């Protein structure tokens, strides 16, 4: 592995970008978390870039920090971060010209015990699809497909997963795609906000959030990494993402010009599971 080499290249590039004034902020990682975890950090001054780090513990998705500053922002982007940037651009949340993507070829992140993260095991995109600069890693071979996971789709599984959930919403906060000003779960009127957090509200939250992310998930696994309770709710969005890919030939964040699947339609879209038609449209 050559994290150090990549790190030095990224740091040199960030320094230059900041010094030249090409960007005013660099969103990246620094060291200092417990159990070797790298911390998101916003670099604004070239000297500070010495703190920048790049290792196998750069877990969080950095897209939450892209807005807010003045001037352009550079992001030290894992392939999934880069896909999230692309998705945000295609959803008109960011402008391409405001963001400088420093893409890194990535072989996956690991947890505190050094085991690869589940989302990284399943990941099939180890090179950012869109970037301004690419920091390559010749040791990493191009992936063609991630590990296939079969889903247990029983109600028991779903109930077992949501029973662990404490409705703290950290998966929502960690997700690049959850940028609604007020989440439906926080609305008091009409009363979507959970009255008493039981299974019903958890189902509403997880199913509602998954629907919002249908066709938008960039498979970064930030939701799962953020969860302290160990809830594997990502299996829902994985199934939906694959389904959308299959049906509408769309994967979020791969192509700046592609229109998001749920924001477009075709007259001949298949109607799977509709009454009076289990095949092509009318």
């Amino acid at each position, binding site marked *: 592995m050559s994290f150090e080499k990549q790190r030095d290249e990224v740091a040199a590039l960030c320094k230059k970008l900041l010094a030249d004034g090409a960007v005013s902020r660099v969103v990246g990682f620094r060291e200092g978390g417990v159990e070797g975890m790298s*911390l*998101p950090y916003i670099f604004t001054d070239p000297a500070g870039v010495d703190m920048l780090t790049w290792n196998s513990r750069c*877990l*969080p998705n950095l897209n939450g920090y892209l807005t807010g500053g003045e001037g352009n922002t550079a992001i030290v982007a894992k392939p999934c971060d880069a896909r999230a940037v692309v998705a945000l651009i295609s959803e008109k949340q960011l402008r391409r010209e405001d963001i400088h993507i420093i893409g890194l070829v990535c072989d996956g992140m690991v947890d505190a015990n050094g085991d690869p993260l589940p989302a990284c095991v399943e990941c099939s995109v180890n090179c950012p699809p869109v970037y301004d600069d690419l920091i390559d890693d010749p040791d990493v071979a191009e992936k063609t497909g991630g590990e296939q996971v079969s889903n247990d789709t029983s109600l028991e599984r779903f109930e077992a997963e949501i029973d662990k959930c404490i409705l703290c919403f950290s998966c929502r906060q960690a997700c690049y795609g959850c940028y609604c000003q007020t989440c439906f779960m*926080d609305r008091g009127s009409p009363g979507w906000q959970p009255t*008493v957090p*039981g299974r019903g509200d958890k189902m509403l939250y997880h199913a509602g959030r998954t629907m919002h992310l249908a066709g938008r998930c960039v498979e970064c696994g930030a939701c799962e990494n953020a969860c302290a*309770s160990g809830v594997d709710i990502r299996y829902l969005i994985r199934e939906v993402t694959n389904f959308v890919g299959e049906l509408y030939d769309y994967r979020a964040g791969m192509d700046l010009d592609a229109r998001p699947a749920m924001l477009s339609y075709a007259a001949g879209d298949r109607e799977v599971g509709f009454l009076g038609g289990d095949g092509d449209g009318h």
Partner: protein
Amino acid sequence: MAISKDVMRGFLAHLSAGRTLIGPVDTGKVIEYRKASPNEILMDDRVSYKSIKEFYFPQVERMFTFSEGEVQDHDNPAGCAIFGGKPCDLEALRVMKAVFTTGKFADPFFERRFDANLLIGVGCIAKKPGCFCDQVEVDMAFSDFCDIMLEDSGEGYNVEYLSEKGRQALNEYPPTKDVACGNTRKADPPQADALALSPAITEAGFFEAIDWAKSTETCQGCGLCSFICPTCHCFDFRDSSENGTVHRYKCWDSCIYPKFTLHASGHNPRESRAARYRQRLLHKYRYVPDNFGLTACTGCGRCVRGCPVGMDIRQVVKQVMEVQP
């Protein structure tokens, strides 16, 4: 008195005949306290991601039921036997007891559970990544704020009782009949890197002490820290109605959420995420110390380990501490 862990399991089995037994269990992904059989309960040195606070202050607690124009108080809880509270959890419970039961009014729901539960504390053998009990004057191995305290030697436990309730429980089980009363031990003297805020700086002074927005810019505002924190005790009342019957619940809330202080008029005293983070930090390190003489952070490290973006409260406290009065 030193006993083996098997004897302890026997004692727990004895307890479980009369009470709901709660203890740390490995669920595969995480360790959590829940209803458990004596054999499932972990007796190693690992820590759970949530504390024992939910057995005193549940995430959701039914208070009253309104039905046909009458209101009915919820019944008293049966009481649990809780095994394995770590000294940081026990010290946190001390803070919670101070908040909920001192002053002009007491919270009856906390009080009832506190009186009904039997708490067995277990000391830690080693600090875990992110733990900092020594920096907030909490002894990793011992706390007297429980009914029975077990000091873990790895092989077995040194058992002491610290309350009448604890003495009685031990007395009823022959192998632990002769356990002695524990001492009220002082924590180790604070170390050089103790985390505490100077009383010489005013509260308003701390508001200006550091650039809070910069120091907390990577906080995502998810509020996970307050859910897994053993001392966070803020709550909200929520109503849930069905067919004319309304239940009123007391539910965990978090000062990290923007709606926490939002007025109906739209005015919000803590508008920014930085202001909310500052509230959480100062509440623990300044306001509770001012009101009750206790630090409302017991160094359990759960927020440090659990934060999705690795926000570390110690680092922010240190920044604040660097400010001279």
